[in-house]
């Protein structure tokens, strides 16, 4: 049982990284996630665990430092908010192509462009549909509480190393800035060189020995056929992840006649909307994708046989709703509701939107 604290989501990301035994953090400040690096700098883990914390000159530099660290088999991470993540996408594509594990954190703010510093969920496409170039995926975890900000640091690293893939924690300004009770994880030591050799020795650039080929971390192959073969390998890995790593949570779906689908902070808001609608005698449930890639398509397809309609609620103009529609495949009506550009919808607004869409309300 870990220690109980009251912390901001951003602060706990930093705390969890140190406690998990991360080797390095490289980043550049941007609201609303600057507390991540601030907390790391205040904790000075380089004096205790030996973890490196470095403010790079830019987001582009940060992501390429991750590439270097990850290629050595180290557990490295960065964090940013929307415009900063956009700057990193070239590097993310390279990391995915070179099959390098790492942890990314996006505390999403309103866009497009420099946008605003207020919470948003409009980076769903960027996170789940590539964002950068080429046919790649990254694992995307969507925390809905400060506790999950803690838990997903470890989970994100574990999955990243299990599949040699970047993991992304897709958070937003609400979860990053709010404080909640959190049980922080116990301290784990950083991996020793021997452990890195054992875990990642088959690919990491840990220093060539006489009896093996050189390890090269690259995403480049000028022979198209070889590149296609590499892509086949990546795609097989993505199918494997889709099979094994889908995570979701259901709230009052057992007898539901309608379904809300929402992730992250919007799912918290929708939980209250479900309660409000049930007080009016309307049987509504909530499905919360915890992994938005891989997406819980199969479960949503099953629920399409049970409910009369689904409302995807997200702080965007309608992004995750596309994945819900693909899963439902035209079987029942699927709609979208959400405030965006930095505005957070209230539980009551969700109720109104639901009634308007499905019950012919005002």
């Amino acid at each position, binding site marked *: 049982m870990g220690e109980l604290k009251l912390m901001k989501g951003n602060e706990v990301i930093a705390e969890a990284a140190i406690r998990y035994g991360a080797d390095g953090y490289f980043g550049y400040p941007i609201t609303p996630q600057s507390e991540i690096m601030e907390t790391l700098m205040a904790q000075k883990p380089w004096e205790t665990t030996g973890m490196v914390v470095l403010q790079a000159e830019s987001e582009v530099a940060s992501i390429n430092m991750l590439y270097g660290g990850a290629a050595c088999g180290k557990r490295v991470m960065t964090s940013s908010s929307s415009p900063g993540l956009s700057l990193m996408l070239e590097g993310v594509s390279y990391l995915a192509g070179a099959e390098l594990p790492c942890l990314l954190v996006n505390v999403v703010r309103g866009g497009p462009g420099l946008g605003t510093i207020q919470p948003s969920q409009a980076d769903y496409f960027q996170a789940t549909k590539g964002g950068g170039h080429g046919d790649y995926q990254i694992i995307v975890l969507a925390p809905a509480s400060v506790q999950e900000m803690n838990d997903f640091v470890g989970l994100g690293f574990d999955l990243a190393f299990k599949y040699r893939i970047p993991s992304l924690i897709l958070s937003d300004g609400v979860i990053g800035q*709010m404080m909640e009770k959190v049980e922080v994880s116990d301290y784990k030591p950083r991996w020793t060189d021997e452990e890195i050799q054992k875990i990642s020795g088959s690919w990491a650039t840990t220093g060539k020995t006489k009896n093996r080929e050189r390890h090269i971390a690259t995403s480049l192959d000028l022979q198209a056929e070889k590149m296609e073969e590499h892509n086949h390998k990546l795609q097989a890995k993505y199918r494997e992840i889709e099979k094994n790593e889908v995570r979701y949570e259901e709230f009052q779906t057992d007898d539901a006649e309608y379904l809300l689908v929402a992730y992250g902070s919007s799912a918290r808001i929708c939980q209250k909307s479900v309660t409000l609608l049930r007080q009016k005698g309307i049987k509504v449930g909530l499905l919360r994708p915890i992994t938005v890639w891989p997406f819980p398509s199969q479960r949503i397809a099953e629920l399409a046989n049970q409910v009369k309609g689904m409302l995807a609620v997200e702080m965007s103009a309608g992004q995750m709703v596309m994945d819900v529609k693909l899963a439902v495949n035209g079987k029942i009506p699927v709609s979208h509701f959400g405030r965006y550009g930095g505005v957070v919808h209230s539980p009551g607004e969700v109720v109104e939107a639901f009634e308007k869409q499905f019950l012919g309300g005002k």
Partner: protein
Amino acid sequence: MTEEIIIAGFGGQGVLSMGKILAYSGVMQNQEVSWMPSYGPEMRGGTANVTVIISDERISSPIIHEFDTAIILNQQSLDKFENTVKPGGLLLFDPNGITRPPQRKDINIYSIEGAEEAAKMGNPKTFNMIVMGAYIKIRPIVKMENVQKGLEKSLPERHHKLIPMNLDAIQVGMDKVVKFAVN
């Protein structure tokens, strides 16, 4: 029990830290809590507010638009939040600087001369604890022993010598809060 609170005033008045101490007091008595600040490009002198929820049950939405209690520390916040208090709810305000006092007759309104009492104590920084004392007097949702533990947890150790003064300020708030009659 669920208590949904908005605390709103000027940046620099201790709005966010009052919320944090309340939330920590809730944690100390094993309750669920959430603390959600407005985090616009605010600075000292601008407006600041924080939503605090303390509950026996798991908290669903940390974002809410109506409240059991509003603790109001300036005119802009009164204008913005008076109508968000649920009927039967509580509005606590400091009349200092208020030119248009609250009007609602379907809620319970109390006032505390926080700024004035803080000046009398010789330390304007005790202001937020005086106001919090007034609140706890009317809504004893957190026990004093847990408030003390909450203070210990939320203040860095180098400031722990200030805890007795903060406890005194809370007592002053409890003693000085008065019911406000709407004309």
